[in-house]
């Protein structure tokens, strides 16, 4: 029996990187789910400006070469209609999907492959102050926000699925609500402790490792400092949205505690 437990435990330790990936991916999805509305507003503004400036420039250029007013009208209309309302809608949704998948690639995948290095927190803090790269600042914060939202969403999903499972087994139906609530809270604590915290410490370790490697490779200070811009542009906004709009901690906790 003990051997079996140890085998299972060994397997558990080996699949932890997969768990780190999953927590970040779930958290980023929560953020991406509310990103498309914001993306649509930004696309509308950009398109409006491009329509205005682009068609003015095109009309001026065409007038210079003696194009007829009819032709100018048709060409500028074509330019303005090139990205129409429906296309912008679709683009906004694709952008949200793209941000999510790109976020997985630039944060979740590196953490999946990263082997955690034990370095004292004090040394890490000193390194950050001595050589503050974008990655060192943004990766741990993004990981913290994504993990926060991810852990809450995971707890909620397991809670509702547990409830459905207990309801299906009719003799367990009377305890379905409190049972699911207890399981949800346990999952919240377990995933937060075993995966959420590790996501953050792995992000710190990974960003530190990358900064040290860049130093060894004698990259210019500017290049070293800018390392991590993709995380700052792609992951950070989505992770912030995840905590602020998609998985607000207080209401999620209230739902978990409601049936206790």
């Amino acid at each position, binding site marked *: 029996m003990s051997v079996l437990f140890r085998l299972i435990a060994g397997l558990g330790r080996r699949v932890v990187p997969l768990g780190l990936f999953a927590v970040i*991916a779930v958290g980023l999805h929560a953020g991406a789910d509310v990103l498309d509305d914001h993306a649509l507003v930004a696309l509308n503004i950009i398109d409006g400006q491009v329509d205005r400036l682009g068609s003015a420039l095109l009309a001026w250029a065409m007038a210079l070469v003696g194009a007829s007013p009819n032709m100018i009208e*048709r060409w500028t209309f074509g*330019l303005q209609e090139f990205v129409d309302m429906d296309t912008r809608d679709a683009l906004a949704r694709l952008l949200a999907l793209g941000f999510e998948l790109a976020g997985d690639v630039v944060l979740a995948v590196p953490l999946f492959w990263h082997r955690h290095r034990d370095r004292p927190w004090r040394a890490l803090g000193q390194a950050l102050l001595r050589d503050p790269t974008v990655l060192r600042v943004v990766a741990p914060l993004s990981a913290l926000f994504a993990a926060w939202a991810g852990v809450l969403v995971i707890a909620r999903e397991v809670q509702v699925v547990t409830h459905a499972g207990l309801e299906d087994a009719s003799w367990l139906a009377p305890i379905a609500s409190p049972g699911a609530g207890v399981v949800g809270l346990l999952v919240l604590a377990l995933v937060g402790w*075993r995966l959420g915290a590790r996501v953050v410490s792995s992000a710190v370790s990974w960003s530190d490792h990358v900064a040290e490697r860049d130093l060894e490779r004698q990259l210019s200070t500017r290049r070293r400092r800018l390392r991590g811009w993709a995380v700052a542009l792609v992951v950070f906004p989505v992770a912030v949205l995840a905590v602020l709009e998609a998985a607000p901690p207080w209401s999620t906790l209230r739902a978990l505690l409601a049936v206790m």
Partner: protein
Amino acid sequence: MADSKQDPRAKSPELEELHRLLAEVDAAASGGRPAPSPRPPPRRGPRWWLGILDLLAVSAAVYTLMVATPVGGLVVRGVHWATGRHVRTRPLITYFKTERGAGVSSHAVEAVAQAPAADASTTPGAKAAGLDPDLARALALMLSAGNRSEGHFDVRYPPGAAASFAAVGLVAPAATAPADAREAALLTGLGKLQADLHHPEAAVAALAVELPRVRYAVHLAKAAGAAMPGEYAAFREYLPPDDRAEADPVVHGTFALVTAFGMTWPVPTNARITSPFGWRVHPVLGKRKLHGGVDVAVPLGTDVVAIADGEVLYVAQDGVNGRFLKVDHGHGLTSVYCHNDSTEVRRGQRVKKGAVVAKSGASGRVTGPHLHFQMELDGTPVDPEIFLK
């Protein structure tokens, strides 16, 4: 001797020399045998039960990843592709905003367009069950996809209906039962479910998934602080993922149609429609193009009102549509008002049905002042005239 055991890691040369001398003395005293070296502290391996907790945590995280994110959808597609198995998968977009990408079938919209007068078959049943006739009609349209049999909707019950009916003491009719019996039973069942759940959206959801799950989801939404826990948007995230996929099209489709049936026209109804919805030769481009809305001739400065309650998605301006805005009425129904002289609302503002949202004008690409009014269901433009009462 005691000191050397207490501090085996002493680094200074003097101390190391002292330790060596003491060890020699010890060895001499013990008959030439070397003194036992200080034993290093036993190395503690990782505790096995933590590994088991890790496995549990990873299982929960990976389960959520697989059922609730597009990454999971991609993995499932990849596995199916690699194994050569053909399995139906959800479009990636359905992992996002639920009100889009699932909902009203084109058959249902066509049915509204083709036979609006015959839709009254549900009205007596709706009144008997204490339901809104528009809701009864929209639900019957959705569940029948617009198909009729002997003057009644050919209703097909969703998977959760039988269990929910049983939970309120009813029996769902068999698929072979006559159409009028299936239509009548649907309305009776919906009435009972609405009385149980106190909200029509929760009641319609309980037709698609089992009643106890909807009750629980509404309960959690209420606990989480939702102002209207019976609204589908509030409790949807507390349904299991498979149930969400079942309920989304039924609930969104039904209530998008309910809103459309109850809408008001954005400008006075006597204003002339100068260009209807549909394919036409574009006046500027000279090419065939879908006209996604209707053009209504109105004088400059005419009040443009919201067709139903909703939230302003955005207010924008571009070269073609001029000053325009889009209002989200929920459940995938949106309305767009273009070529305005001015807009009277801002992004995120809640508007009531009939509230002035803009003053009509001639901004953008126009040949004269008019309102271009567009309605979209699930992101697809539909002809607003078919909903005009």
